[in-house]
C-alpha cells in the first residue's frame, strides 16, 4: 500500500506553484459551453410567470389565451388555485414555446387572479415586524455585571442589509429525455450528483437514470445546490412535450428569487478592563432572509469572552427566500463583532491592532496563526506607521485604517476519484465533481500530474458528469480538500498498480521501480531509466484503473483556518462617498495546490466584499412588496474602479503545509466588510455602522456624529 502523504517541499514540481487555470483560454474565447449556452435540436424555451404580489392567495388561473398564443407548445401550472404566495416574483405558471419571445408572449397571456394579503418586507425596525420569533439567548458568565464594572465600555447598533447572490450565469438548466426512463440535464449547479438524485425522485425515475452535466458554471456562491422548482418544471415540460426544454431565470428572477443573504441588525455593548482585556459582551439582534426569517450569526465572532451573551430574533418577511451565501452568517457576524471591537478599542484609547493582539488568546486554537497574520498584514499595509486615532485627520477627504479577523472550517468533502493510465501514456482522472470557476479542474490536474511526475499536458481531467465517481457538492469550501484528497489517493494507487502491471514485463519486481520526473527508474540501477511513454507502452490494451476516496488513509486534508484583512479607505466628509485605497488579505489554508488560483479566489472575495460593503442591497418596495432593484442597474455590483489596490498574501511553509489541503472559497469573503467599515470609521471619526456604506448612510453617520 502506498504511503498517503503529500510530497515534501523539495519534491513538489507543480503543487504550490503558480499554474494558470486550464480552462482560462476556452472561457476567454467564448468556447466554454455553460448551461445557458446549451442548445439542443428541437429545443423549446420555457418562461415562468411570476407573482406581482408579495403575499397573496391565488384565486383563479386562466391559461387558455396562453395556450392559443402562436408558438406555445405547453403550459404548466406550478402553483395552483388556493396556494398562498409568500413573496413577489414567485413562480406560478410555466410556458414552453418554440422561441424565447413566443414563451414570453405566452407567459404574458396567462391570467391569474389573486386575493391580495398584507405583506411585510422591511425589517430594519424590529418593532414593526408582525411575526418576529422570540429571541433565543446564549449566555456565558455574567455579562451585565462585567459590563457595569468594565473600565472601558462601548455600545452601538450595527446593520447589514439583505443582499442577493446575483450569479452572472443565472439559475436554470436544459432538460432532455432520452427515452421514458432516462433524463439528461445540462444544469448550472454546484452539485451534479445531488441534482441527479433530487430530480430522479421528483420525476419518478431512478437517480441513476438522470445524467447531469456541468462543465462550466457561472457563479453560485451557495445558491445552486438544489434541483430547484425550475429543474422539476423543466423536466416535466420536457416529458410532456417530448422536446428538450431550456429554462433559465432572467436577471429579474435571478436577483429576486434565486438566493439572498439575510440581513443582520445587532445592538452591542462591550467592555474591557484597564489593560485592554475584553471582559464582557452583551448583544441582541434580529434579521431576515425571507419567509423563514434568518439563522443566528455566530456572535461574538472568532473571539470567546469570559462573560458574553447574544440573543437572536428571526424575522419572517415576504421576500424571496435566503440561500447559503458564501460563508453563511459569517460576514454579518464578523462585521458586527469587529465593528464593536473597533469601537471598544476607541473607548479604551487603544490602537485596535493592540487590542486584538492583547486578546488574541481568546480566539482559541488559531491564536498563534492570527498573531502571525496580524503582524504580516500590518507590515503590508504599514499599520504601525500610518494608523492614527479615530477622527484625527482633518480636511474634506480623510483616510483611515481598519482590520478584521475571520475563520472557517473547510474540511474536504466526500469524494471519489478513478485514475486511469493508458498505454499511450495518457493519465486520466475521472471525478464527479464540478468546477464553479474556482479552479477545481486545474487543482485535480496538478495533483494527478505531480503524483505521476508528469507535465500538465500529459494528464486529463474528466469531470462535471454525474455518471462519474461521486463527489460532494461544491460548497462550504469543501471541494479542494475533497477532490485533492481523492485524486492524490487514486493517483498513488494508480502508480502502484502501473508498476505492478509492468514489472513482470520488465523482469523485475514492482518494488524495484520508481516513477519520478517523467521517467521510470530502477531502484537497483540494473537498467537505465526509461521514459514514461516507454514504460506506459507496457500497460497493455486495458488501461490500469485505481480508485481513491476522501476521507481516507493518511493526513491529506485538515479543517480550520484563520485569516486577517486590513483596509485603507478614504471618506469624503461632504458627500459620504467611501473609496477603497488598498486592501490587504493574509490567508492560511494549509497546503496550497495552485498558488495562482488560490490568490484569485482571494481577489474575487475581496471584490465581492467591496460590493457588499459599499454598494449592494436588495431594496423592497413597502407599497407593493416587490424588489425594486431586481436588475444590474440599481442592484449595484462594484466595478474595477471601485476596488482599489489589492494585496494578497498566502501563508505557506512550515506550520501550514503539513496540515494538508484546506478549503479557501469562504474565508476571504468574510472580513472585507468589517475591515472596510472599521477603516471608514477610523477615517471619518464617527461610527459607520451600516452596510452597504452608501453616501446616504455615511452622511447620516457623519451628521449623527456631529462631524457635518
Amino acid at each position: 500500500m502506498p504511503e498517503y502523504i503529500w510530497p515534501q517541499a523539495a519534491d513538489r514540481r507543480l503543487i504550490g506553484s503558480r499554474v494558470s487555470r486550464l480552462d482560462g483560454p476556452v472561457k476567454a474565447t467564448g468556447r466554454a459551453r455553460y448551461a445557458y449556452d446549451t442548445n439542443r435540436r428541437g429545443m423549446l424555451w420555457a418562461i415562468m410567470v411570476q407573482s406581482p404580489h408579495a403575499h397573496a392567495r391565488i384565486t383563479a388561473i386562466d391559461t387558455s389565451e396562453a395556450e392559443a398564443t402562436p408558438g406555445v407548445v405547453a403550459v404548466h401550472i406550478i402553483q395552483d388555485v388556493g396556494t398562498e404566495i409568500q413573496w413577489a416574483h414567485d413562480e406560478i405558471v410555466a410556458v414552453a414555446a418554440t422561441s424565447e419571445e413566443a414563451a414570453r408572449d405566452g407567459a404574458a397571456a396567462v391570467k391569474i387572479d389573486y386575493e391580495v394579503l398584507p405583506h411585510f418586507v422591511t425589517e430594519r425596525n424590529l418593532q414593526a415586524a408582525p411575526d418576529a420569533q422570540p429571541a433565543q439567548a446564549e449566555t456565558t458568565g455574567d455579562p451585565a455585571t462585567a459590563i457595569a464594572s468594565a473600565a472601558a465600555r462601548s455600545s452601538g447598533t450595527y446593520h447589514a442589509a439583505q443582499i442577493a447572490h446575483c450569479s452572472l450565469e443565472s439559475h436554470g438548466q436544459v432538460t432532455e429525455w432520452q427515452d421514458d426512463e432516462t433524463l439528461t440535464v445540462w444544469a448550472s449547479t454546484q452539485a451534479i450528483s445531488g441534482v441527479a438524485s433530487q430530480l430522479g425522485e421528483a420525476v419518478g425515475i431512478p437517480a441513476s437514470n438522470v445524467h447531469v452535466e456541468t462543465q462550466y458554471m457561472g457563479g453560485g456562491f451557495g445558491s445552486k445546490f438544489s434541483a430547484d422548482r425550475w429543474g422539476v418544471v423543466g423536466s416535466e415540460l420536457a416529458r410532456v412535450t417530448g422536446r428538450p426544454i431550456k429554462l433559465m431565470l432572467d436577471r429579474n428572477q435571478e436577483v429576486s428569487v434565486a438566493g439572498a443573504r439575510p440581513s443582520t441588525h445587532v445592538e452591542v455593548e462591550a467592555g474591557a478592563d484597564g489593560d485592554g482585556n475584553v471582559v464582557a459582551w452583551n448583544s441582541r439582534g434580529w434579521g431576515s432572509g425571507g419567509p423563514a426569517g434568518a439563522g443566528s450569526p455566530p456572535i461574538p465572532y472568532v473571539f470567546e469572552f469570559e462573560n458574553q451573551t447574544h440573543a437572536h430574533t428571526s424575522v419572517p418577511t415576504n421576500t424571496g427566500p435566503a440561500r447559503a451565501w458564501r460563508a453563511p452568517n459569517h460576514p454579518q457576524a464578523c462585521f458586527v463583532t469587529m465593528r464593536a471591537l473597533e469601537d471598544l478599542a476607541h473607548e479604551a484609547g487603544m490602537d485596535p491592532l493592540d487590542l486584538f493582539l492583547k486578546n488574541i488568546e481568546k480566539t482559541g486554537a488559531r491564536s498563534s496563526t492570527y498573531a502571525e497574520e496580524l503582524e504580516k498584514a500590518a507590515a503590508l499595509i504599514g499599520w504601525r506607521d500610518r494608523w492614527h486615532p479615530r477622527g484625527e485627520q482633518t480636511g474634506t477627504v480623510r483616510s483611515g485604517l481598519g482590520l478584521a479577523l475571520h475563520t472557517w472550517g473547510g474540511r474536504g468533502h466526500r469524494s471519489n476519484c478513478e485514475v486511469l493510465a493508458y498505454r499511450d501514456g495518457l493519465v486520466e482522472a475521472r471525478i464527479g465533481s464540478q468546477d464553479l470557476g474556482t479552479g477545481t479542474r486545474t487543482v485535480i490536474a496538478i495533483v494527478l500530474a505531480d503524483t505521476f511526475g508528469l507535465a500538465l499536458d500529459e494528464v486529463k481531467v474528466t469531470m462535471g458528469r454525474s455518471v462519474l465517481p461521486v463527489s460532494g457538492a461544491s460548497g462550504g469550501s469543501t471541494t479542494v480538500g475533497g477532490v485533492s484528497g481523492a485524486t492524490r489517493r487514486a493517483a498513488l494507487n494508480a502508480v502502484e498498480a502501473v508498476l505492478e502491471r509492468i514489472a513482470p514485463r520488465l523482469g523485475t519486481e514492482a518494488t524495484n521501480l520508481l516513477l519520478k520526473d517523467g521517467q521510470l527508474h530502477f531502484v537497483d540501477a540494473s537498467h537505465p531509466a526509461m521514459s514514461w511513454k516507454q514504460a506506459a507502452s507496457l500497460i497493455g490494451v486495458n488501461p490500469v484503473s485505481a480508485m481513491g476516496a476522501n476521507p481516507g488513509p493518511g493526513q491529506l486534508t485538515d479543517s480550520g483556518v484563520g485569516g486577517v484583512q486590513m483596509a485603507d479607505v478614504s471618506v469624503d466628509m461632504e458627500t459620504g462617498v467611501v473609496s477603497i485605497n488598498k486592501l490587504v488579505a493574509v490567508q492560511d489554508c494549509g497546503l496550497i495546490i495552485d498558488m495562482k488560483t488560490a490568490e484569485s479566489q482571494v481577489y474575487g472575495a475581496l471584490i465581492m466584499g467591496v460590493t457588499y460593503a459599499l454598494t449592494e442591497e436588495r431594496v423592497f418596495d413597502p407599497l407593493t412588496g416587490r424588489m425594486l432593484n431586481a436588475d444590474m442597474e440599481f442592484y449595484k455590483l462594484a466595478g474595477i474602479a471601485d476596488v482599489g489596490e489589492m494585496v494578497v498574501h498566502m501563508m505557506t511553509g512550515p506550520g501550514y503545509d503539513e496540515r494538508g489541503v484546506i478549503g479557501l472559497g469562504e474565508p476571504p469573503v468574510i472580513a472585507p466588510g468589517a475591515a472596510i467599515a472599521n477603516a471608514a470609521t477610523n477615517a471619518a471619526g464617527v461610527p459607520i455602522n451600516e452596510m452597504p456604506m452608501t453616501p446616504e448612510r455615511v452622511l447620516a453617520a457623519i451628521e449623527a456624529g456631529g462631524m457635518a
Partner: protein
Amino acid sequence: MRRFEYTSPQTADDAVRMLSSEGAAALAGGTDILSLMKDGAAAYSRLVNLKGIRGLGGIRNTDAGMEIGATAKLGDLLEHHGLVTMFPAVAEAAMGVGSRQVLSMRTVGGDLCARPRCWYFRAGFGLVPMHDGESMAKQGDNRYHAIFGNSGAAVFVNPSSLAPPLIALGASATIHGADGPRTIALEDLYRTPASSDESEFTLGFGEIVTHVTIPPPSSQNATYEVRNRKGMDWPLATASVAVSDGAARVVLGHVAPTPWMSAAAGEALAGGLTDASAAAAGDAAVADARALSGNGYKIQLTRVAVKRAALAARGG
C-alpha cells in the same frame, strides 16, 4: 415579442412623416428604447431609425456656435478636441457615463431625450405612478427621486447627462417637425408632467431634435457628479456651472423631473468664482429643495456638487 415596424429614413422630413403616427418612436443608439421595450415599460408599433439621416450627426463650428448633431455619439464628444477644451462641463458629463459600450452607442439626442430611470416607471407603473390616489414614489422608496419640482405627483428625475451642462452653457435645441425646423432654448425641451398620460418633453407630434448649438465659448465651465460607484452608475446629483461675462448659470441634474436651473446659485457666483462664492452658491442652490421621505441626503450632495463644480470651473 410585440411586433413593430422598423424604418430607416434618409431625411429629417421623412423621419418626421414616419414618426407622425400613433405608437411611433425614434431609434438612434438604442441604449434606452430597447430596454424600455424589453422591460415592458413602453410599447411601440414603429421604430424610426435616425442614424441613416445625413447631416444629423457630427460636430461643427458655425457662426452660431458649436453645433452638435443629434446622432453624434457621446464618445464622439470626447474625441473632439475643441469641445473638450472649450466645454469641459460637457466632456466631464459624458465621461461620467462610465461605460465604453454606452459611450460608443448612446447619441446626444438619445441622451437628451432619455426616459427616467425611476424604478416604478421601469417596472411598468407609469411615469407618474399612483397608488390610492397618491404618488407611488412619494409613499414608497424614493431614495433616488426628486428634491426639486416635486410638489406634484411627478417625482422622477431627469436622467440626461448632457442637458445640465448644455443648458448651463446656454445651448439651444433645433427641432424638426412637419412645419420645418424651429429652435428653442434647450431647457424648454423639458416639462414636468401632471400624469402618466403626459410627456416629460415639449416635442410635438412627430418632432425630433436634430442638433444642439452651444453659443460662443463661456470662459469657465465644469460639471461635478456625485455617484456611489466610480464606474458605470447613475449620478445621485450633478451640477454644471458656466460663467460668461460675469453672469453664471448653474444647472442641476438628477434632482428634479427636469434639468433644474438654479437662478439663486447663479446669482451667488455672479461676482466671480471664489471659495466663498462657491460655498454660497451651494447653499443658495438647495435653499428651496424639499426632500421626500427617503432622499434628504441628496440636498447635501447637491450643495456639494454645486460648490465643487464652481471650484472646478475656476480651475481647482
